[in-house]
């Protein structure tokens, strides 16, 4: 048997900070668990749509943060600052183009991802909650589209926003109040643009980040669904049910068990 050699210097240099971090936070293990978790054997390309949507959102977040450095959310300056970003700022046309076209890519990918989940039946027990979170993310994504459309403050954006807010106003009973809330006043005014800007770059993205966290947590906890044609049954439980406890808490981990399995275990 060959004698065990000490790890090479390069390996030591790479491992030392990772070990340091792992010992104090467990983060390295968490990332390994996330990246190297088991997935069904017959996943296919359509399973990458969720990650693609996430990537599109991250691109929107990064390009948006850069655009915010040059954009001036005031009715007198908004359009000029967009012109400046597009024509004068170095590579501004590229970052703005990425944000503008990336918005459509994000929306399209959300729908494709939703279609995949629907067609594979991946919304079924025990993943209903993740479907609900996904629908909230879809609504928030569309809301980002609505609020972002006004920000260039051109004619299209202005009138599209007026029409969109007035459509909200036709909602029964609370419609008129919704209009005031969105305009920030009884009609389109100075506060409207700033309000949309705040919603577009702070409130809605914050909520999206939080919900994506929950969404991913549930994906990791419940596992990826096999395609419907897979010989592995969808939603197979991944570990053995616990023996029934006498304190009435055996439903605690029921998230991974089907009712039939729970009954059989008892």
């Amino acid at each position, binding site marked *: 048997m060959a004698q065990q050699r000490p790890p090479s210097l390069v390996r030591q240099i790479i491992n030392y900070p990772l070990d340091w971090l792992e010992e104090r936070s467990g983060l390295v293990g968490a990332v390994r668990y996330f990246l190297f978790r088991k997935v069904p054997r017959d996943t296919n390309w359509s399973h990458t749509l969720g990650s693609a949507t996430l990537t599109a959102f991250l691109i929107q977040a990064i390009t948006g943060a850069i655009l915010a450095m040059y954009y001036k959310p005031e009715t007198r300056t908004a359009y000029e600052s967009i012109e400046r970003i597009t024509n004068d700022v170095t590579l501004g046309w590229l970052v703005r183009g990425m944000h503008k076209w990336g918005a459509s890519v994000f929306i399209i990918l959300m729908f494709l991802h939703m279609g995949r989940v629907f067609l594979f039946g991946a919304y079924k027990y025990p993943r209903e909650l993740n479907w609900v979170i996904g629908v909230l993310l879809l609504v928030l994504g569309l809301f980002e589209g609505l609020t972002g459309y006004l920000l260039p403050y051109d004619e299209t954006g202005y009138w599209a926003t007026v029409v969109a807010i007035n459509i909200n106003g036709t909602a029964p009973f609370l419609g008129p109040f919704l209009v005031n809330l969105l305009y920030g006043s009884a009609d389109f005014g100075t506060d409207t643009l700033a309000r949309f800007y705040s919603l577009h770059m702070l409130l809605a993205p914050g909520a999206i980040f939080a919900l994506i966290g929950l969404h991913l947590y549930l994906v990791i906890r419940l596992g990826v669904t096999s395609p419907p044609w897979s010989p592995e049954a969808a939603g197979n439980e991944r570990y053995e049910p616990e023996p029934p406890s006498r304190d009435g808490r055996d439903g605690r981990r029921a998230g991974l068990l089907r009712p039939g*399995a729970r009954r059989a275990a008892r």
Partner: protein
Amino acid sequence: MEPRRPSQPHLPPPSLWPIGFAVGVAILLLGLVVGWGIVLLGALLAVAFGFLWVRDLASDEDAVPPTRRYELDPLGAGAAPAVGARGEAALPPMDDEEIETYPRSVFLELSTLGLGALIGGLITAPVLGFAVLPAFIDQEEDAVDLGPLDNFPEGQWRIATFMENPAEGEVTRRTAYVRYNGDLKGVPSFTVISNHCAHLGCPVQPGGPITEEQKKEVKTEGAPVTLIPTQPAAFSCPCHGGAYDTEGNRTSGPPVRALDRYEFSIRGGNLWLGTSYSVSEVDGTGKDATITKYQRMYPGEHVDGIEQVLYPLPAPQ
């Protein structure tokens, strides 16, 4: 104990009722466009199929989660207390769970939660108020000076653009169509129509020649007002095709009422615009018109007919 059952997928049996339910809803929505009879038909279908669907689900045993069957105490804590054999008092057995206690830990837990909620509420309430209330407080429109009366010849239309609030700038620029109708009982009569379409608020356009060369800038106390002569045969909206006659009555398209109008007054020989109001219809023309007025509503909201029950509370203005 329940009998052991083989593991089986948790699926309700296939059912066609939801399809009928969806068809009913679709017919109902179609009816909103076509007519009330169709709405009724759709509603009946949706209710009938919805009922069948719910009944189907309710009768399906597998769909109902199994209730807990086991008991905490197999001897039965709820059973009658055993009576002492030799004349002892028939005391109920002392069971730890039955003694009501209020330990310190529970008190601390509740007071921590309560204090946290109180602090959170104290911080959240003003922030929420700051975010929401200003949009609803002090929203009445300021009166606007449109300049001397002799800029408005009798029977002619002017496109008047003005700033509702000059301090806020261009964003408050509004447009009204103004026509002097001659005097009514010694008082000048004006028709002042807002350009906000009663469908979804796009700017309606005059259907007729606009004499841009005769544009006139009028200096007033506020921002300058521009007046452009036009000879409209009608008003129409570029967004979704709403059409109105020159009194603002809807003639075709999606609008739900007539065009809004402005109150006006004559002060020191100048025409002043006041607040705007909504109109269901106008009978007659010019100074003889009878206007059915309502408080200002947002575009797309009905002021008359059965649909007005959907908008009982206008936002405070």
